[in-house]
Structures are given as C-alpha cells and as structure tokens.
C-alpha cells in the first residue's frame, strides 16, 4: 500500500513502519520557541537538565513575534529569559525585528519540502504550504524536543479534498479558504492530515497556499498539504530567497480515510462572522454591516501578494474618515519588498497605519486591540470572542478588508 504525504515524511524521519494510528518517534529538522511559550521552555529545561546542552544548536531557534518590540514588562522579561539562554547555548534568535516565526522559517529555507518542524505556535502547521510536516506543541513537548531532537507523534489518518472549479478575482485564496472552512467545519478534518487537489489550489501562489494551510488549525486538523503546488516564480524567489520548493506527491495506492469534493465555481468574496471562523457567509449578505476598523496581516494574510491586493483596491482612494485601517507585514523581507515596489506608498497615501512586522493585530500584540462594540474586519484566522479585545471580528480577504474600510461597511472590491 502506498503512503500519503504525511506518512512519507514521518516514515523518512522515524524507525519502523509508519501507519495511521501508530505512535512513532520523529527526528526533527527544526525545533523552535516564541516569546510566548519560550520562557517556559527555558525554565523547564534548566529545572530538568541544568546546564546540559541542547541536542543540536544548529537546529534550534527562538523566534520573537508576539510582542515586538516588547510592549509589556512581562514580555520584556520573557524575551530576556530566552535571549540569555540562547546566548549561553549558542542558539540563534530571530529577534523582534524579523517578523512571524513560521514565515521566517520558510524564507530562510529551514522549513522546506519533506522536513519536520515543531514549535510553540498553534498555527505552525502553516508549513504544510511548503510540504513540510509541522506541529504546534506545548512547552513540555518543546523542552523535550530542544533536549532530544525528537518528538513522539501519532501518525494521523489522511483525508483527500478535491476542489472543482477555478477562482477568479475578486475571489482570492482567503475566500477559497473560508469556503472550505464553511464546508469542513471543525469535525470533518479533526485530527487528520488533509491533502488538497484541484486547479483552484494547484494554481495558488505560495502566499495563497500559506493562507489555506494556516487555517487548517481552525478546521481542527493536524495539517494540510497541497502536494501538487506550483514551483516558485521569480518574484516569489525574491520573497523566499533561501527556500527550495518542489511538489511532494503521495504514493500510488495511498490510503485515504475519507474523500470529499467541494465545488468552488463562481465563488464570491466570503466573510466569517463572529464568533467562529466556520460561520461563513457571502459578502453580499453582509453589506449593511458597519465597520469601525480593519486589519490586514497575520500569518494567514501578511505576504506581498496580500498587500498588493489591498493596494489595488486602495490606490487613489482614502480610508473613510473615522475608520482605522491597520497593516502589519508578516516579515521584514515582506516590508522591504513593499518598499521597493512602491506598494507601501499607496497604502500610506490611503491613510492606513503601517507597523513593523509581527503577529500584532491578530495576536494580542503591538498594534492594539478592539474595544467594546467595535466592529473590525480582519484578515486574521480567528474571530473568537475576546481574542482581539472586546470587539466583534469578521474575517475576510485583504481586498474585502480594504474595500470595507473605504466604504465604512462590509464591501466587495467591486463596490468601490
């Protein structure tokens, strides 16, 4: 019997036969910790192992992306705890200037097809976008991973999702993702790896694949793969200079626990309404909803392509007075590309606030929260009650967020 993508990757990083339901020890190519979770990893490590070295400092990293630079005393202290440990151990820190850790791992080529990565980020499975096995875990597991270079993992079942049809502007990768979330809910893909097939996903850019794979977490899945993803374009190679990307196929005769087909013909812009990412409606059903603020960024929609889509809508237009539009590039490299291509200027001219890279705006980070009664339209991945302050969060694509901030109510890019 052939192997699915996740079975192939886990097989090549463990001993014995890999089959669904079996627990295996996985050799890790990368283990990482953020400024949340990281301090507990350091405390656990020092309590259990004293001054012992990590298993391989070349494969161990800290990535600071949550409160960057630290905006509370707690984060300032926690980042220092990690920096001191890293200096002593010779571990590389991607510090507060660099951006979202998972994206840095892709740009640096540390996460690439067939590799295995763990860290303290519940959206780390986003690395499925580059056909890499990755998993967010708690501080006990990551401490163990730092020390041993391994993690135990139960090989999951794999589900196959076939998409029928193509997507066209103004629908984008985010609308496709929200449509899939509406279909899958939190049950169908729960505890499974998912392989996505069909032109709609196979034609996505890497940024689009990142958007889809980032929200596998919201489907309660283990991770998602697009095995036949396109190779990188010359533009993408500038954005991911050290990443070597190639398709990673499932073997002939691979076994899938279930298969389903989702029709995405004529897909319109989609929005997830409070307070669940799976409560998805068309923009056309929500056009009377007033918005107070917008956010574009996060590990889901923080790439150059995402800001280009926003700029396409905002060029020559202004964010409606009284509305706040917050933009946070995923990484410093994205920021640089936006500068070089003149996109940042368009966004600035529209009246948007542009901040340094990181998880702010989605996580409780450096670009503020929402207040009671505030309605925000966001490109993030979660709209749970209380996550971004007391306001109500609607999830949408960068183009829809931009259009909504011009109109002052939920809008499609075609409405401006």
């Amino acid at each position: 019997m052939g192997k699915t993508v996740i079975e192939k990757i886990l097989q090549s990083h463990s001993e014995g036969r890999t089959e669904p339901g079996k627990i295996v020890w996985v050799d890790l190519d990368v283990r990482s910790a953020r400024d949340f979770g990281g301090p507990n990893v350091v405390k656990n490590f020092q309590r259990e192992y004293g001054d012992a070295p990590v298993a391989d400092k070349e494969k161990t990293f800290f990535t600071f992306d949550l409160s960057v630079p630290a905006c509370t005393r707690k984060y300032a202290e926690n980042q220092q705890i990690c920096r001191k440990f890293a200096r002593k151990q010779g571990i590389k820190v991607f510090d507060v200037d660099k951006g979202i850790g998972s994206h840095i791992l892709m740009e640096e080529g540390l996460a690439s097809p067939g590799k295995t990565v763990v860290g303290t980020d519940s959206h780390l499975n986003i690395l499925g976008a580059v056909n890499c096995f990755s998993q967010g875990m708690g501080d006990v597991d990551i401490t163990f991973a730092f020390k041993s270079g391994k993690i135990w993992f139960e090989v999951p079942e794999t589900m196959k999702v076939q998409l029928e049809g193509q997507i066209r502007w103004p629908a984008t990768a985010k609308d496709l993702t929200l449509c899939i979330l509406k279909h899958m809910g939190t049950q169908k893909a729960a505890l499974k790896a998912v392989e996505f097939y069909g032109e709609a996903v196979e034609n996505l850019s890497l940024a689009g694949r990142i958007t889809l794979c980032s929200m596998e977490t919201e489907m309660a899945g283990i991770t998602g793969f697009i095995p036949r993803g396109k190779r990188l374009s010359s533009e993408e190679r500038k954005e991911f200079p050290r990443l070597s990307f190639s398709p990673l196929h499932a073997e002939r005769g691979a076994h899938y626990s279930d298969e389903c087909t989702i029709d995405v013909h004529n897909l319109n812009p989609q929005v997830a309404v409070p307070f669940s990412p799976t409560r998805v409606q068309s923009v056309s059903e929500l056009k009377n909803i007033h918005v107070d603020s917008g956010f574009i960024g996060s590990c889901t929609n923080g790439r150059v392509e995402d800001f280009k889509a926003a700029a396409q809508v905002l060029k020559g237009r202004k964010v409606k007075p009284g509305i706040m539009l917050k933009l946070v590039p995923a990484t410093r490299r994205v920021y640089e590309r936006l500068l070089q291509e003149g996109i940042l200027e368009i966004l600035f001219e529209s009246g948007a606030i542009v901040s340094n890279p990181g998880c702010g705006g989605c996580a409780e980070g450096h670009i503020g929260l929402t207040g009671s009664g505030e309605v925000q339209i966001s490109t993030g991945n979660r709209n749970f009650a209380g996550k971004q302050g007391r306001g109500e969060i609607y999830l949408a694509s960068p183009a829809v967020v931009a259009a909504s901030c011009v109109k002052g109510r939920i809008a499609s890019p075609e409405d401006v």
Partner: protein
Amino acid sequence: MEKSMISGRIWVLTNNRGELIEDIDTDQIYHNAHLHITEISEMGQYALGNLKGWEDFSQKAQPGDILIGGRNFGAGSSRQQAVDCFLSLRLAAVIAPSFGAIYFRNAVNSALPVFKCPDLKEYVEKGKMESGDRIEVNYRTGEGTVVNKRFDFFVEPMSDVQEGILRAGGLFNYEKTLNTT
C-alpha cells in the same frame, strides 16, 4: 501480577440517564478558578468538581481507581492541571473511546495511563461495566476483563512509545534514559 497489567475499581462517568458523558472538557475536569494552584498534591480535591453529578468525585475516589469516560474526553484547553488532578488522586488509568488530542499528549507525557477503547459505549449500555466493578487491563495486548462479571473486552494496546514514557515516569525522565550525546 505482571508489570504490564493495570487493575482497579472503576468509576463510569454517566449522566442521570445512565449514559456515558461525551465531550467532557478540561474546564469540567479542572475548573479555571483553581488554575493558580501549583502543588499537584492540592489539585486532587477539585478533580471533576465542575462536572454535573460528579462534584463529590474527589471524596469518593481511592488511589488505584480507574476512570471510564465518554468520547472526546479532555476536549478544550491545553491545561496540564486536567491531567495532574488525577495524578494527585493517584488514579491508575483513564479509559475512553477517544480523547482530545492535547489532553492525550499531556497525559502520556505525565505518565498517566490513558487507553482508547472504541466499543466502550456499548459495554456501558449493556451493563457490562458499572461503577464499582473491578477491571484488569493488559496494556501490551489490550486484553481486559471485568473481574466480577467475567466479561472480556479490548482496549487499544499501549504503543512502545507510550509505555516507554510511562515506565520512565514521564517525558522529562524518559529523556534521561535515552543515549543522547
């Protein structure tokens, strides 16, 4: 008794209709009001304290008892205390048809024996397992017996990995037994 055997008196987590309670979340197992407690020995008194009909569980449970739960046991948050409170009461094991993914990881890492038993609901419905029964489980073969009813059942055998961590007394201790350089 062989070392691969676990035995004890069971508590079957049923509702007032006698059905196994499904989706028991970590807030029902260990309420967030007690998260400030850091001593494991103090956590046992709050175990299941927020689960309707089972608020007095910590007074009834004895060391060595085994908990029988419904599907998706330990759903919800990643809180380690939802495992630690059972270690505090020195329960011998938790058996359920399935577990929340993080809960299962936390239990394995803390050396609390957890077993998946897909047919558990049927056993309970048919009266084959009731609170107060005594069971034995061989965690290598998955063979189990309700001793006082002479009823045989199966759980999924423990994997080598889970057994290794259990024997070492937890994930951190397990690491100390590895031959790492």
